[in-house]
């Protein structure tokens, strides 16, 4: 059996495709000349959205879209996506399978890898083809302390890839491609029933371009207002280190770090955060990092571009005053 081309799993459990799927299509197009074959996208979608979704995936780079059309209520069911992806792999026989390393992707993809007994690499930051023509996957391990380059000896090579590391390609709606409707036999068993959405996230730090992040330098829950104001003035998202979530001062969706969100904004401002390895793991790839801390020997000094030695309350107040004369860029 020969394995050719690339398959991108397009994440869709809510009715809209996760943007990381498009990033992966862009990356895959770049890899394709070295790997050969065609670029497939596989999607579980509904009757209503199938055509629109396939057009989108083709515009972002897919040659052939494998559509698994299910009733709306089956969309958020992981079993359906597992079965679809296994079917898509056996149909397309791709050399490489890319899945967004979202919580959802990191739940579906490993199941599929185990089912088809192939190797899988988690949360990759890059994928490239080396001089020997082998696919190499680049991933962080040990809470982001180590970067490892990994090869897979079995086929297909499977990887979950971190959202936001590859640029969103420019869609081209004149691109030609094919949509292939694929059947999925849905068993009527009730092993997994999705009862409903309990809460949609209002903050998505992974997509923020400017982040103001607060740590234990903040002395009380009420004081957070000041930093909220600062975030607003800079058109930024407010985030935090883990202790603030543990104390119940901030919601978990705003936590940055190993056990929170991995972010890579254009600007990350860390206020009263010491820079523990678990926090650094979540923000070190930000383009520009400013730290404000009274302690110039805080570990975060090694991971920032500008270190303001000072009190976060004092700096926040003065900065807010000074900003009144400026317009933020929308």
């Amino acid at each position, binding site marked *: 059996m020969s394995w050719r081309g690339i398959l991108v799993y397009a994440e869709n459990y*809510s009715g809209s495709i*996760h943007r990381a799927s498009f990033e992966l299509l862009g990356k895959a197009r770049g890899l394709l000349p070295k790997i050969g074959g065609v670029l497939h996208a596989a999607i579980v979608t509904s009757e209503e959205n199938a055509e629109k979704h396939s057009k989108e995936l083709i515009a972002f780079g897919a040659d052939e879209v494998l559509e698994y059309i299910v009733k709306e209520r089956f969309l958020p069911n992981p*079993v359906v996506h597992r079965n679809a992806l296994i079917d898509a792999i056996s149909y397309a026989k791709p050399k490489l399978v890319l899945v967004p390393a*979202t*919580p959802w992707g990191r*739940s579906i993809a*490993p199941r599929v*890898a*185990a*089912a088809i007994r*192939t*190797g*899988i690499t*988690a*949360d990759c930051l890059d994928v490239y083809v080396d001089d020997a023509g082998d696919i190499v996957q680049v991933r962080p*391990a*040990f*809470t982001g*302390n*180590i*970067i*490892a*380059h*990994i*090869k897979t*000896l079995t086929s297909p090579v499977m990887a*979950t890839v971190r959202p936001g590391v590859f640029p969103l390609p420019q869609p081209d709606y004149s691109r030609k491609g094919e949509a292939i409707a694929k059947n999925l036999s849905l068993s009527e068993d*009730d092993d*997994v029933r*999705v*009862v*409903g*959405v*309990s809460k*949609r*996230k209002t903050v998505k730090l992974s997509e923020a371009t400017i982040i103001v992040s607060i740590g234990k330098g903040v002395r009380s829950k009420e004081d957070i207002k000041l930093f909220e104001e600062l975030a607003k003035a*800079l*058109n930024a998202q407010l985030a935090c280190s883990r202790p603030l979530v543990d104390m119940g001062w901030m919601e*978990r969706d705003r936590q940055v770090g*190993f*056990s929170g969100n991995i972010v890579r904004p254009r*600007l990350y401002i860390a206020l009263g955060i010491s820079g*523990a*390895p*678990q926090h650094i793991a979540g923000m070190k790839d930000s383009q*520009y990092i*400013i730290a404000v801390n009274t302690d*110039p020997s805080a570990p975060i000094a*090694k991971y920032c*571009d*500008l*270190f*303001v*030695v*000072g009190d976060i309350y004092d*700096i926040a107040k*003065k900065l807010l005053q000074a900003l009144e004369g*400026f317009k*933020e*860029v929308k």
Partner: protein
Amino acid sequence: MPRWGALNIVVLIKPAPDITKAKFDIERGTVDRSSTTLEINPFDLYAIEVAKRIKRLFGGTITSLSMAPPHAEPALRDAIARGVDRAILLSDKRFAGADTLATSYTLAAAIRKLGSFDIILCGEKSVDGDTAHVGPEVAEHLKIPHISFVIRVVDITRDRIIVEADYGDAYYTVDLKLPALIALSRPVIFKEEFVEPSMPKISDVLRAKRAKIEVWNADYLSDVADVGRFGLAGSPTRVVKAYYALEKGRMARFVKGDESIITLLNTLKELGVIQ
């Protein structure tokens, strides 16, 4: 058909190095094992806590499985002190060098060897492996349903468990048939109660010191598994190169006093945040 009696609860516990103290063996892309002791992977502490609450409701036993080198034994004693009834260490040279596929295969084999199980609990991810892939792969080998990134156990009966899980863009409520595997995030809520691991009592630590740790090797699993799928031999992925991610760091410019606000404003302008 409803099932009766106590529940057999399995917890997957990874003995992992404290990454703030660990030194790394860059050649092999692993932790220098001699540089640090192994302790329970922090996320797995939540799995133990949830296991205890399930046991309180239904009765039963909590069995922990850990695939690790022999010097992981203190971590297993810690698990017993925290409330695990039976701790099993899967340890054998033939398990070494396992990636997620071989690790999950070995853990699944050990679960089969246990005989019957109703629920498997594990952590969202490990601080060293850092993949979040092992739990789902174990579930697949056992052909049972699973849900990852669980932040709440809404309800549990002898036949089903209802959980809230983080899908990424939203939290979904999912109702699974037991036996199933649940991978726990933190913070986690059990019914209405916030679950927070606490230090074990001295009396429990002393009791755990005398407890028996069962050690299973590859041969012991040979009737339920293909020993060729263990360890490096059963691992399709290979680390070809590894290096420190944080070594480079950044060269920060330090400012203080009156200079601070002016520098901040200029930087914000240069970055195009304000105009």
